[in-house]
């Protein structure tokens, strides 16, 4: 590994004045505490949903539509029902509660009734005593379709017949900020297309539903938002929420709202219908068809600048392909429109955004939603402006960067730290990787790989820069609340909080927070189910902020309960007592006892909530204080391009990020590296292709994820610790912003290497070819 060990070496810490210097410790905040489950995960013993088992379980299979758009003339389940071993077949007629569901709008049927609106939409489900029987029976359900012409071009959605009773327009935001008549001295225009990235979690969806004696059902699944999934399931099952319990199992990868309700709902229905536990493990193909993807986006931009390269006005049209159902597309559009100008000061902005229905695969929340698509476009525009004005790409960005106190085009003032100029400077000043011209050729990993066709003569190197921003937490008035309980018994503390560990490291962080507040080393985090109070979805960096904040408050309440009697006895306030390494000492050293003794055999419990300051929805001109907080990063990439065949290899990625405060250096580094890897995938290979609405190659050969050879070592040259005063611990979530920024930086580097426009992600080989003839 090049770069800095654990991300701490080159960190310029700027702690608030008066922060005490802490001695080196192996626990608490700021330490690289390893995750408690890493040994189980590496040795393969960590239980995921696909490993679940129950006595007498049945196997489920879901019948999915082979057509992207078709009228269902009839569904005949007779043959399937009569197959030996089949215990139940359910269709839309068997949904006892709400026939439709959705994360924001209930517009998606549990099972398609009259109409299928996307390839892979669930139509029926079967429970049988063997997985093969279930699959065969699902295939034996006779569905007569009247195939309809699919609407697959989002631009056609406006004029097409409505695909849904709610119409084809999911949301429209005409953001207007400043004077529309202003014109810049220099104008550049661009058209950008962003493809369909799939979350491609390494573990496909799986679950087990167990009927309860009270007529309810328990669903064991890798949910990332268990309470929302419970409410949705209860409504569809026609049950009170209390009678449905979602139990969270190990999550094998998530980058947004992970689970596919098209699988959980049939599972629960079949368990209720048969009275038996029912298990389902999706195939890779079903996984690709079922869950939500990143919104494919079409962007038209016009940037106006003065002769010095200062931005005057940005005009843009942003069209998101929502797929057949609304899901969280309204939120994605809000982010895309709000961040359409990027982390730059723009006095006048006119951004019109639409999210429309099509018969393409469903889109939904994927990390960096909206922000990633616009970043590729506005950074492409900045490169164009630089070229037109003859300015250095870094220089033009430097002249326009936003800082704390500036306005977003939504009229919201940036109140949090926004050290964008410092980030850009850090990646610019980092040394460039040396050209391998003196190395023997075999040590130079050429585009195309070790045994590839790479030819050094045809390889051009390019350097590209990008700045990106994301918002943190839900926006536009979402009630972002989390509740946590901390319990202390003897030398052990337990955290009970329904914040799902998706790999983002929340359980490790929760342990560190309790260690920090209570000085107790052994901290356990309880398994999660919906009998606990809700903590909300594991997305948009919420849990570091709201759930971490709730854990800290609960731990502090326990601390007060623990120290109050002691402080009272010794006639001092609890603030004069310190807890470290399981020992309680007073400031003067007179009192020294252990936590265990102070507890006197008692068990201490406290529950607390964290709710950040409220936000407001964007109004009809796209104005409003819609976001709780913002995070920024700067990325420089170096690429090698084989300009004859268009193969691209990312040679170096240098990152500087605005993180607020480093809570766990190793974990932070891992999050940034993961984000960069995902960004490289979006830039070069990841695109779920469709042909007239039908998903092509829904497998991990056809959908190429980046491998270890595609992702270089990530150099983190600067982590700026300017604490966000409104955030608990002052920390900013770190996962999303590298995903947002890296694709734009890769595109910029390919642009620099080839001189081609590169206005489409992922970058196709033909777009990176230079015609020398």
């Amino acid at each position, binding site marked *: 590994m090049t770069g800095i060990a654990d991300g701490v070496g080159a960190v310029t810490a700027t702690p608030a004045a008066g922060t005490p210097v802490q001695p080196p410790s192996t626990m608490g905040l700021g330490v690289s505490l390893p995750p408690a489950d890493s040994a189980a995960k590496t040795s393969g013993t960590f239980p995921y949903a696909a490993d679940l088992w129950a006595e007498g379980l049945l196997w489920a299979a879901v019948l999915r539509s082979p057509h992207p758009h078709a009228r269902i003339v009839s569904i005949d389940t007779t043959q399937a029902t009569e197959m030996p071993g089949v215990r139940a077949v359910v269709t839309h007629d068997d949904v006892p509660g709400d026939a439709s569901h959705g994360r924001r709008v209930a517009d998606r049927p549990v099972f398609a009734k009259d109409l299928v609106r996307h390839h892979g939409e669930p139509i029926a489900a079967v429970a049988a005593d063997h997985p093969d029987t279930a699959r065969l029976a699902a295939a034996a359900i006779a569905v007569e379709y009247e195939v309809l012409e699919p609407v697959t071009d989002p631009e056609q959605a406006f004029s097409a017949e409505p695909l849904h009773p709610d119409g084809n327009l999911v949301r429209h935001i005409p953001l207007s900020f400043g004077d529309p008549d202003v014109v810049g001295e220099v104008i550049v225009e661009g058209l950008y297309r962003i493809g369909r990235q799939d979350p491609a979690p390494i573990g496909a969806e799986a679950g087990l539903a167990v009927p309860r004696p009270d007529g309810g059902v328990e669903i064991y699944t890798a949910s990332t938002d268990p309470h929302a999934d419970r409410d949705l399931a209860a409504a569809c099952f026609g049950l009170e929420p209390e009678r449905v319990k979602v139990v969270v199992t190990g999550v094998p990868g998530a980058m947004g709202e992970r689970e596919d309700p098209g699988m959980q709902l049939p599972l629960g229905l079949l368990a209720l219908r048969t009275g038996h536990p029912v298990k389902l493990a999706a195939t890779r193909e079903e996984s690709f068809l079922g869950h939500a993807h990143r919104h494919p986006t079409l962007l038209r931009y016009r940037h106006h600048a003065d002769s010095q390269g200062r931005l005057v006005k940005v005009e843009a049209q942003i069209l998101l392909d929502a797929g057949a159902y609304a899901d969280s597309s309204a939120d994605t559009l809000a982010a895309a429109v709000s961040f359409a100008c990027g982390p730059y000061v723009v006095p006048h902005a006119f951004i019109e955004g639409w999210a429309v229905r099509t018969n393409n695969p469903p889109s939904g929340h994927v990390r960096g939603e909206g922000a990633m698509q616009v970043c590729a476009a506005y950074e492409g525009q900045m490169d164009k402006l630089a070229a037109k004005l003859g300015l250095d790409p870094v220089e033009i960005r430097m002249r326009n960067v936003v800082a704390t106190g500036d306005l977003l085009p939504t009229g919201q003032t940036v109140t949090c730290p926004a050290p964008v100029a410092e980030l850009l400077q850090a990646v610019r000043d980092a040394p460039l990787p040396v050209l391998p011209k003196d190395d023997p050729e075999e040590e130079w990993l050429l585009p195309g790989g070790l*045994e590839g066709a790479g030819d050094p003569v045809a390889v051009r190197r390019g350097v590209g820069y990008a700045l990106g921003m994301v918002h943190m937490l839900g926006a536009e008035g979402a009630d972002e609340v989390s509740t946590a309980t901390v319990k202390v018994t003897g030398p052990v503390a337990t955290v009970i909080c329904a914040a799902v560990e998706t790999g983002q490291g929340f359980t490790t962080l929760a342990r560190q927070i309790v260690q920090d507040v209570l000085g107790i080393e052994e901290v356990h985090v309880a398994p999660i189910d919906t009998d606990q109070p809700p903590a909300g979805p594991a997305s948009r960096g919420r849990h570091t902020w709201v759930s971490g904040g709730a854990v800290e408050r609960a731990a502090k309440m326990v601390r007060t309960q623990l120290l109050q009697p002691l402080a009272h006895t010794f006639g001092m306030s609890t603030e004069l007592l310190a807890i470290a390494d399981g020992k309680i000492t007073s400031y003067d050293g007179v009192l020294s006892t252990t936590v265990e003794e102070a507890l006197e055999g008692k068990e201490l419990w406290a529950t607390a909530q964290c709710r950040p300051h409220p936000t407001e929805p964007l109004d009809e001109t796209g104005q409003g204080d819609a976001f709780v907080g913002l995070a920024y990063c700067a990325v420089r990439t170096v690429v090698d391009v084989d300009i004859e065949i268009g193969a691209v290899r990312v040679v170096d990625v240098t990152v500087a990020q605005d993180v607020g405060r480093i809570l766990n250096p190793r974990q932070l580094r891992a999050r940034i590296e993961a984000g960069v890897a995902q960004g490289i995938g979006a830039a070069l290979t990841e695109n779920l292709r469709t042909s007239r609405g039908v998903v092509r190659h829904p497998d991990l050969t056809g959908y190429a994820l980046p491998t270890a050879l595609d992702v270089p070592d990530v150099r983190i040259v600067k982590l700026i610790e300017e604490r966000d005063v409104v955030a608990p611990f002052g920390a900013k979530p770190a996962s999303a912003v590298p995903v947002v920024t890296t694709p734009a930086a890769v595109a910029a580097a390919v642009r620099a290497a080839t001189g081609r426009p590169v206005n489409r992600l992922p970058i196709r080989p033909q777009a990176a070819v230079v015609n020398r003839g």
Partner: protein
Amino acid sequence: MTLPGTLDEAVAALAAMPAAVPVAGGTDLMAAVNSGLLRPAALVGLGRISEIRGWRYLDGHALLGAGLTHARMGRPDFAALIPALAAAARAAGPPQIRNAGTLGGNIVTAAPTGDALPVLAALEATVIIAGPEGSRREIPVSHLLAGVDLLNPGELVGFVRVPLLHAPQTFLKATGRTGPGRATASVALVLDPARRGVRCAVGAVAPMPLRPLEAERWVASLIDWDGDRGGLDPQVTAAFGEYVAAACIPDPLPPQDGSEPIPLPPAAIHLRRTVAALARRALGRALA
């Protein structure tokens, strides 16, 4: 599942259980089983047949066992013998696949992207097929891949006979990423100094490897076979690349009615350009 110890036992096992499917590395077969496309009634495992796991020399040829894994073919001793096949084997996927996948499996699966196939086509290799009661028949690999001659039920690919040419060979592959991936196009090129020939095959652009015979003959006529084979004008290697690419990805036939010919779609133009670059580089490296 039966595990015979010899090729003839394996053929006998297949004859005894006509519904059984032979399995070697299982990298294609088991993927089909796992995705529910295939439910074989029984399996005949070929992993214990030591006679097909290695290779031996046979009058100027190498007789390669069908059970040779890609990992084994990728090693330096094999690379000294048949460099292009070794390069294809090393490019054939991640280590897990190369450790399991076999030469025979690559031939029988006959996927358009099978990396060994263009090499075997360029080498004009033959397969030796084991049949009932110890019978053997030998057919060109290309006949098997083109469907001119099929594997009959109960037969197994036992060996692949490859000429030892003692001259440079290259295999080049273009993929979508730097890590292992399926070929979008591949080119195998071998020199045959004894017959003064250049043989080239293009993989992944068609259901089977394609041989640009005219381009081969043309470029072979320009090589100084009695000298060091070097000194070919760069324009000649470039023209060879274009020649190969145009042969493998031809222009659409002009319409009957004499109207304007339909141009190649952009993706096909890019593929043709890629094949041209690969063929040019392959020839350049073989003659370097």
